[in-house]
């Protein structure tokens, strides 16, 4: 064990090993172990019970609902997030800082409060409650409410990822494109968007993970109608509260599986486009 660092900027070897071990230990205890526990607990009563839990009609309908909500909320947030960050990073206008603050709002407000806002707006006693009932439109305790709450909660992910990136890249490439005769739209399509695609992908993954996993806000607007308005996280809670631990963990492993699939997808994309990433220089 040498006390002399190999490089002037390096730490002694023992310190490096100590820090790496500490980090791994921490990650193992806080991330790997709970994740493993979910799968182990789910399989405690055997594979048959596990299969039965995740193929139960209520579980399948919760899975379908979760995927539906994410499939609507994520694309919408991509479009809105891109538009917001484009406007903020590439243009100057009054009240820009107000817009930036509004984008952060969902992060600072408790999810339960976010859910309540929608109940107060669209619920029977809410502002638009009477009007909605007249036209026989149900928002709260139905899919539209779930989608609205999820969009609100997951809105900052794409924009927060893109604004600093776009601001760092500046406006010169766009100006160059304009001076070369490109229209605003083709400048966005050929210059701005490709420059932020990796940041965008990352934002989308975070957005998607949260959209599928959101509990608080969704719990308030859902009404917990089995087979109709239960998403996976809500279904897991119900199973758990009914002391059906094995089933709860089995469904939880399904949700964890979805998250893992997203991660693998991201790694695959990075691997596939490694050349382009290298060509970009950073």
């Amino acid at each position, binding site marked *: 064990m040498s006390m002399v660092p190999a490089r002037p900027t390096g730490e002694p070897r023992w310190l490096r090993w100590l820090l790496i071990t500490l980090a791994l230990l921490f990650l193992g205890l806080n991330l790997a172990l709970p994740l493993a526990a979910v799968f182990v607990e789910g399989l405690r009563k055997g594979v048959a019970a596990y299969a039965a839990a995740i193929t139960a009609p209520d579980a399948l309908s919760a899975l379908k609902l979760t995927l539906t909500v994410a499939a609507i909320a994520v694309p919408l947030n991509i479009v809105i997030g891109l538009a917001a960050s484009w406007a903020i990073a590439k243009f100057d206008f009054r009240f820009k800082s107000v817009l930036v603050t509004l984008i952060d709002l969902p992060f600072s407000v408790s999810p339960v409060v976010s859910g309540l806002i929608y109940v107060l707006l669209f619920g029977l006693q809410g502002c638009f409650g009477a009007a909605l009932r007249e036209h026989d439109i149900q928002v709260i305790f139905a899919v539209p409410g779930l989608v609205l709450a999820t969009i609100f909660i997951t809105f900052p992910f794409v924009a927060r990822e893109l604004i600093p990136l776009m601001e760092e890249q500046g406006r010169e490439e766009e100006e160059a494109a304009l*001076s*070369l005769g*490109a229209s605003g739209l083709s400048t966005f399509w050929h210059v701005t968007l490709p420059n932020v695609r990796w940041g965008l992908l990352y934002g989308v993954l975070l957005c998607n993970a949260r959209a599928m996993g959101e509990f608080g806000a969704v719990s308030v607007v859902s009404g917990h109608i089995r087979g109709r308005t239960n998403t996976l996280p809500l279904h897991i809670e119900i199973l758990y509260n009914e002391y059906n631990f094995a089933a709860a963990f089995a469904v939880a492993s399904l949700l964890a599986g979805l998250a893992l699939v997203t991660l693998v997808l991201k790694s695959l994309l990075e691997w596939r486009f490694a050349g382009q990433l290298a060509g970009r220089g950073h």
Partner: protein
Amino acid sequence: MSVTATAVIKRFGGFTALDGISLAAREGEFLALLGPSGSGKTTLLRILAGLEFPDAGSISIGGIDMSDRPARDRQVGFVFQQYALFRHMTVADNIGFGLTVRPRATRPARAEIDRRVAELLELVQLPALGGRYPAQLSGGQRQRVALARALAVEPRLLLLDEPFGALDAKVRKDLRRWLRAVHDRTGLTSVFVTHDQEEALDLADRVVVMDHGRIEQIDTPEQVWERPATAFVCDFLGGANRVAAQAVGGQIDITGVRLSNRAPAMPDGPAKAFIRPHEFMLAAPGAAGIAVVLRRILRTGAQAALETEAGDGSVIEVSIAAPPDGLAPGAALVLVPQTVRAYPA
């Protein structure tokens, strides 16, 4: 194509970047906008390009008013100091961009675009680098790609914003000679911004010296160097020593030495006089001239630079071919100015 700016005013909040600028570049002319940072030269260039719009005044290119036209309609090539290459595109795609994004009706065929790109890569002397990404090029190579990209759309006017600002001294010099050669070959009217007086005087047909959003002088490099119109221009061109003087009967009196004024005539009274380092002769104490004490001798190649201190504590730089034998720091000398440019104080 000729380009004209008439009474252009531009403000950013409370700051006046351009305060009534009028200038004209003739067809095929190479014009330099020279000034310190904050003088408004880059703002003027961006207004010519349509990347900014003036608060008042007008811009015309080829005799047609362009004041309200956005950048994409002006057919102006713009080269940025930091290159602004599209980082996710290859060099060839960068150069071909302006042609590729044209509407279908006016867009050349793919083969024609490729041919044009190859031709431009040849012109900027990078024929083998079409497949590289900008991050894989040196600064000088990137700037040449940026120039090729601007030329690809056959602009009517070429604008360059401190094109060599981010490059090292050797590359700068090579690239600026090369740029002048490209300009002479294409015959394109060009305007470039620089804060480096040597670059401006070396490269341009005419130099526009700017300060605080105003034009101080527009002239050929010889005229700007020989007859600076204002004290600012004379000072900014660099190197000149500033000494106190008096204008008397059309002549300039510097501590007893009387010289005719190389600058525009000024009324009698106190004057700001500028004397360049090579415009002094050395004399022994007692002669008429500026009495100084020698502080340091620096050999700079063929010349020697003497750093001297006058009685009032001001430092005067003198450049001579060879210092007299036995001259050492601490020696008392008299500097006799040979020429002077003086302006009202």
